C-alpha cells in the first residue's frame, strides 16, 4: 500500500468518525488543534490504525509529532508496516 492510499483511508476515517462541520480536512490540517475533540478520539484512531493496517502501536507512538496531521500519521503507519 503506498503513502497516498494510506493517507486517503485515514482521511476517510477521520471525516466519518469525527465529523467537524465548517473545517475542511486536508493532509496537513493540524489534527490536534483543529480536529480531535478529546483524547478518546486519539484512542479510537489508534484502534483504527491497528485494525486497518495490521500494525502494532506502542505508548511511545502517541506523540504530538506522530498525530500532528494525516501526513505524519501516514508516515507512522508506513514505518510500523515496514518493521
Amino acid at each position, binding site marked *: 500500500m503506498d503513502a497516498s492510499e494510506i493517507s486517503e483511508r485515514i482521511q476517510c476515517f477521520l471525516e466519518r468518525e469525527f465529523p467537524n462541520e465548517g473545517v475542511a480536512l486536508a493532509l496537513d490540517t493540524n489534527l490536534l488543534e483543529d480536529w480531535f475533540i*478529546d483524547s478518546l478520539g486519539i484512542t479510537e484512531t489508534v*484502534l483504527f490504525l491497528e485494525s486497518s493496517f495490521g500494525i*502494532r502501536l506502542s505508548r511511545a507512538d502517541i506523540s*504530538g509529532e506522530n498525530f500532528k496531521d494525516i501526513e505524519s500519521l501516514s508516515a507512522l503507519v508506513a514505518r510500523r508496516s515496514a518493521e
Partner: protein
Amino acid sequence: MPGLLKSVPVDDALRRAHDRHRPLVVLAVLGVLAVYVYLFTQAAGSVGLRLPAELAGDLGVELPAVFDDDGNVESNLQISLTDRVDRSDDERLVFFGALAAAFLCAYFLPLRYKQASLVLWATVAIVVLYGVEATCALLLAHFVVYLVLHPDRRRGLPVSAAAGLAAYLAFVHEAGAGLDRWVWIGLLPAISAALYRHALLPALERPRIAAIVQPAAVHSAILTICVGILAESRTGNAWQLPLGLLMFFWQWARMTMYYIDHRDGQVPSDLPLHRYLAVFVSPGAIPNWSWGVSIPQGYAYLNNNFLSRDKNDIVVDGLRLLGIALLYLVCWDWLRNGVSQWLDGLGIPVYRCNTRFLVRHFVAGAEVGTASVLLTTLLDLARFMLFFGSVMHFKVGVWRLFGYDVAAYYDRPWKATNLVALWGRFAFHYREFLVRAFYYPSFFRLFRGSRHLRVFVASMMAATVGNFIWHVSERVFFRELSVDDLMHTVGTWPYFVLLGLGISGYQLFRMLRKPTRKPWTRDRWIAGDILAAYCTLQFFGLIHIFMRPASGGTVGDLFRLFLIGFGIELPR
C-alpha cells in the same frame, strides 16, 4: 481537547525569537503580585496602609467570612508542611518575594540562564520556608534520581559529591563539631563519589540491574508506603519521614511522568542537572506543595511548552489566570456562606455545603431528604471546585509567568456534559498523569483482540486503580505511614469503582454511538447540554459521599445515603 499531544518540541532559536522584552508586561506582573501581597500578607500594615478589611469597610463593601482576624484576606494559598516561619502571612510574603525575583530573572536573563535562575530562586525560598535540612534532603533525593536516570562519569561525579554534601547537611550535620565536622564534610562527598564511580555506574551499565534500580528510585514513594505499612504491622510504630523526603515523595506523580518521558526517549540522556531540577524545583511547585496532583508534568511537556510562543503572550495569559484565581480566593467562602444560609432559611438544610457534615448527620441517625442530599453534594462540589480551582489557577499562572505555556489545570468544569469531559476540565494535568501512567500501559498490552474490552479495562485501570493508588499515597503521606490511614482510604473504594464505571461506560457508549454535534452549540439541543451538565456534576457530587466516611458509619450507610439522592430510601 488534545491533551499532552498538543505539545511538540521547540528549538532554542525559536525560543530566542519569542524572548522579547515589554516593560508594560513586567509592570503588570509586578502590579498583580503587589495586589496579592496586599491581600494575603501583613505587608500593608507594616508600611502604614489601610488593611484590606478596613479598606472594604471604608468602601462600604460587606464580605462576611472573607477577612481573618488580622484584617487581611483568609486564603487557601498555603505553604504546606512547615511552620518554620511564624505566620502563614509571612510565609506567603517570602514566597511572593521569591516569585517576583524569579520572574524578573526568568524574564530578562538570556535563555541559557532562565531555568537555572528558577531553580536557584525556588531553592532560596525553600531554604527560608522549610530549612536547610529539608531542602538538602529534597535535593539529595533528586540528585540520586538524576544519577540513576542519567548515568555519566563526567557529569555524575560532581553531582554525586554534591549528594554526599547534601546528605551531611540533611542528616548528620549535628554529628560532630570542630574537626569532626570537617572530616564529615570531606568524607561524605568522597564516599558518595566513590560509590557512584565504582558501584552505581557499573551496575547501571547492566540493563537488568538498571531495569530494577531506575523504577525503584522513581517509585520510592510507593515502595516506602509498602515497607512502612509492613513495618508498622510488625512493630506497631508508625514511621515519621524527614520533611525533605516527604516533599520529594509528594512529587511522585510528576516523577512518574518524567520517567515515562525518559523511557519514551523524550529526555536527552545528557540533560544537565539544572534542567532536570527545573521540572521539580521551581517556584510554581512551592504553593500548596502537599496538593500532589498539581501539575504533575514531566520533562517533555514542560520543555516543549517553554517559550513555545511569544513570551509576553504567555505571561499575559498567566496574569489572566492569576486574576481569576484572585476572584476565587477572595470570594469562595463568601459565596459558600451566603448560599448555605439562604437555603437553610428556605428550610432545606445543606450542612454548610459540606458532604462530610451531611454524612455525619445521617450516620448519627437523623432523617435526610432527597433535596438535601442532592443540594448538599452539588454545593459541596461547587465549594470544592472554587477552592481547588483558585489554587490551581494560581499555580498554572505562576508557571506561565516564567514562560511555560502550561494548559489550564481547571477549565470551567460546569460545562462538562459527561464524566470524561469533566475530568479533562476539572483536573486536566492529573487526568493526563492517569492516562499516561495507567491507561496507556493497559491499552497497549491487554485485550488487544477486543476493542471494547480493551477500552473498558484501560479506563478502569486509570479511573479506578491508578486514581485509587494515588489517593492512597496522598492520604498516607499527608498524615504518616500508618495502617489506619491506609484502611481509611481502602474504605472509600465505592467512589473509585463508581467513577471508573461511569467513565468506562461513557467511553463504550461513545464508541457505539458517535456524537453528531459539539456540546454547547447554540441550537435547539442546548437544553440537553444543560441537563447533561447537571447530571454529570450531580453524579460526581453524589459519589463523593463515599469519600467522606464518618466514624461509626459503614459502607452500607453510605450506599443508603447515596440512594436517597436518587429518591430511593432503604430501611436501616
